[in-house]
């Protein structure tokens, strides 16, 4: 093998039939502790992300649970013969009763205000009924669907407005930062309830209004965290390198900064979900959320809370649903975080 490499073509030819073999090197001291890198084929970023994500069992479980909940929240109300708004005072505050599970004390239907006797002996309310006698199984899943929508919107709002705002403010610094921070302080100083009261004057309750309300008030926390994260890394060497190579501000923000702060941000975005869900319930209370008799998890919890001393299941069930959802979102977020983090490749 004495061929001289003079140009690219020669190099290519040489590399074509050259492979590093374990025997190329020989360690004198402790041969057993030596490992070789595998020959890894190049793969796209998204492919990397997917591979990494797939390997995280928790994330997969979280994702599947969320999917199941989404499916149930559509299917359950459709298949049940109860409707979410059928008021029947003869069936008010009945305890949960599930066929086949009546041997369990939680689901045997005892302990409510109205009992499963007489005409109602063959009635089954899986999650019981509320104070107006509306079936909570249907209401919980209807509510779950609305709350998932709110959660999704909140995350999107956080991502598009909060993160962008925080990144621009943090990265450009100087007077841009100064102005943006002052604006944020001013917006933050107006009590949310005041903003919502004014919003009431011009908007009708419903999903659009929820989105507008979220856009008006829910991005500030995210913007703050993002800005802090950006401040932390923007003076690091790789950013400087990118600058030296002539990258524009927005290129650096999206290609260099964003992937590196994504982990922390996604965790915080997930934690903003319960806030958003309770925020929606608050909106419903002031008259901006989903109009009654429709429900959301947040408003079910708020309503159920009033009866906590009498019929605790009315608050426990939606809280448990919310808890499971949150756990799944967090598992999913952990997986996403690891998958997106360029520093976390453990191959």
């Amino acid at each position, binding site marked *: 093998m004495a061929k001289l490499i003079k140009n690219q073509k020669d190099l290519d030819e040489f590399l074509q039939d050259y492979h590093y073999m374990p025997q190329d090197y020989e360690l004198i001291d402790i041969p057993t502790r030596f490992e070789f890198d595998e020959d890894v084929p190049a793969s796209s970023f998204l492919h990397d992300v997917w591979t990494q994500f797939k390997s995280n069992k928790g994330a997969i479980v979280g994702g599947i649970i969320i999917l199941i909940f989404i499916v149930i929240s559509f299917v359950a109300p459709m298949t049940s013969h109860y409707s979410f*708004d*059928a*008021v029947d*005072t*003869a069936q*008010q*505050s009945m305890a949960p009763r599930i066929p086949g599970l009546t041997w369990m004390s939680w689901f045997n239907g005892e302990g409510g*205000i109205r009992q499963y006797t007489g005409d109602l002996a063959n009635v089954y309310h899986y999650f019981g009924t509320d*104070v*107006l006698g509306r079936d909570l199984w249907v209401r919980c899943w209807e509510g779950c669907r609305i709350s998932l929508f709110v959660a999704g919107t909140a995350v999107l709002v956080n991502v598009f407005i909060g993160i962008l705002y925080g990144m621009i403010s943090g990265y450009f610094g100087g007077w841009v930062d100064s102005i943006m921070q002052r604006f944020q302080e001013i917006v933050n100083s107006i009590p949310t309830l005041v903003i919502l*009261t004014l919003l*009431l004057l011009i908007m009708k*309750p419903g999903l659009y209004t929820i989105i507008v309300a979220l856009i008006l008030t829910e991005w500030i926390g995210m913007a703050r965290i993002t800005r802090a994260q950006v401040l932390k890394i923007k003076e690091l060497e790789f950013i400087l390198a990118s600058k030296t190579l002539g990258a524009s501000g927005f290129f650096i923000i999206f290609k260099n900064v964003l992937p590196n702060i994504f982990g922390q941000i996604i965790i915080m975005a997930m934690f903003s979900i319960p806030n958003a869900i309770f925020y929606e319930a608050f909106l*419903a*209370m*002031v*008259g901006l959320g989903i*109009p*009654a*008799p429709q429900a959301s998890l947040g408003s079910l919890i708020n309503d159920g809370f*009033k*009866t*906590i*001393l*009498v*019929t605790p299941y009315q608050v426990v069930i939606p809280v448990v649903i919310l808890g499971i959802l949150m756990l799944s979102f967090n598992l999913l977020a952990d997986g996403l975080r690891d998958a997106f983090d360029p520093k976390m490749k453990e191959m």
Partner: protein
Amino acid sequence: MKKFLSLACSSMMLISLVGCGSGTDTKKSDGNYVTLAKENDVISMDSRYATDGMSFEMIAATVEGLETMDKDGNIVPALAESYDVSDDGLIYTFHLRDAEWSNGTPVTAADFTYAWNATIKNPAAEYAYLFGSDGACIKNADEILAGDTDLDLAIAAKDEKTFEVTLAKQCPYFVSLMSFPVFYPVNEAYATEQGDQYGLTADNLIANGPYKLVSWSKGNKLVLEKNDSYWDAENVKVDGINVNIVPEASTSALDFESGNTDFTKLNSTLVDKYKDNEAYTTVLEGYLWYLQYNYDNKYLQNENLRKAISTVIDREDLVENVLKDGSIVCGGFVPEALATGPDGKDYRESAPEYFNMLAEDGLKAAQEYWDKAKQELGVNEITLSLLYEPSDPSKPAAEFIQSQIQQLDGITVEMVSQEKENRIEKQKAGDFDMVLTRWGPDYADPTTYLNLMLTGNSYNYGKYSSKEYDAKMAEAANAKSDEERWQKLQEAEAILMNDVPVVGVFQVGGASLINKNVTGIENHAVGVPYIYKNLEKKE
């Protein structure tokens, strides 16, 4: 870094200790004290400004007026030992008993003239209108309220103990109004000395009633102590009252269970838990919740549609199964326990009941009205909005009413939930189809409700106008005798219930827990909600 952290931590500890240390001036309350839990704090201890029930209660506990109410709601003498009425019914002369303020000065007729004049000439005193023809009809009051500053109210302190009031026209319920806090006395010397601090804290107040306020920790607690200089002090059986401000009914119920609280109101969701408890009682409050229809809505101008909606609501089901807190059905527009007629009977007892059909009959009748309405309007489907406020008991009641109305095929009810201030603004602007709203009586007479529906009345938000009704109300006002007046008022209500611009839904009840050792918590539907003079607590 370490230094910084330890500094930060220690300064935080310091702040929190300082925070904990402050505001600990609440007096110890040993002895025979009764502890009440109340939802709201007092807004004003100054009888000239007070407009809310809680303020009335605490003012009435510490200051007495000319008259007060006994436990059955009868007007009984308080500071006025007796009174005379002139033959034409226009001049009332009150003879005051010997009583003292807690600072030692005697209560005189001048205290009344000062308080009344100060109230009516102060535009910021909202209840000043009660001096005028919407209330006590005192001579010159309407002119002063309209801005005439030269006139004086026709009241006079004849001597220290004689107080004379001249009315512009006869007012059958004048004496009962005297138990209302806006007519209470204020000691001029003391009030002037305190200036704008008068009534703002426990230290800026004097009492002439059964108790005196000794501590007022804002938003948290009031402590009342027996007032030894009260003229009837021997009949005050407890050493004092602790009033805890607890906005959440669940918490005060828990505190009741733990044995610390002697009296708390319950909300309807808690009733199921306590209804078999021996401490459980219900009382009737004055507020009437009613449905008002807007005549600007082209469908609601139809009488049969209004009747269909008014009839279809199963009020019995609502109060028995949804509200459960002792609220009662009220299909008319004058609530129960408001006013007693010349026959000695409650107004509602002698007046007919309206819209009291039970579930199936009501639905059937409503269906007939609705069919007629559909024909007349030429539509099969309509959507109406229902404005309500998201608090108890309005929220569950509104949701129930919605489901009831929607039993009629073709009517969709759109729910518009607006917190109270906005609800009122929307009502004023006429921006509603139907509204679930309430009215609390200002004085013990049906006109406090019936006047609302006169043409052009500012609370007639639905723009109802009926010549027949207006004429009937005028007849009542000019009636020769009490019996005739009563008759006319009932006829007027009948006209109203035939036109149904408004329809009563329920009268609010108060479910509460009262320690079985405590007696004498007296509730009233009109005026001061609770009077505590006769409290007793067995040790």
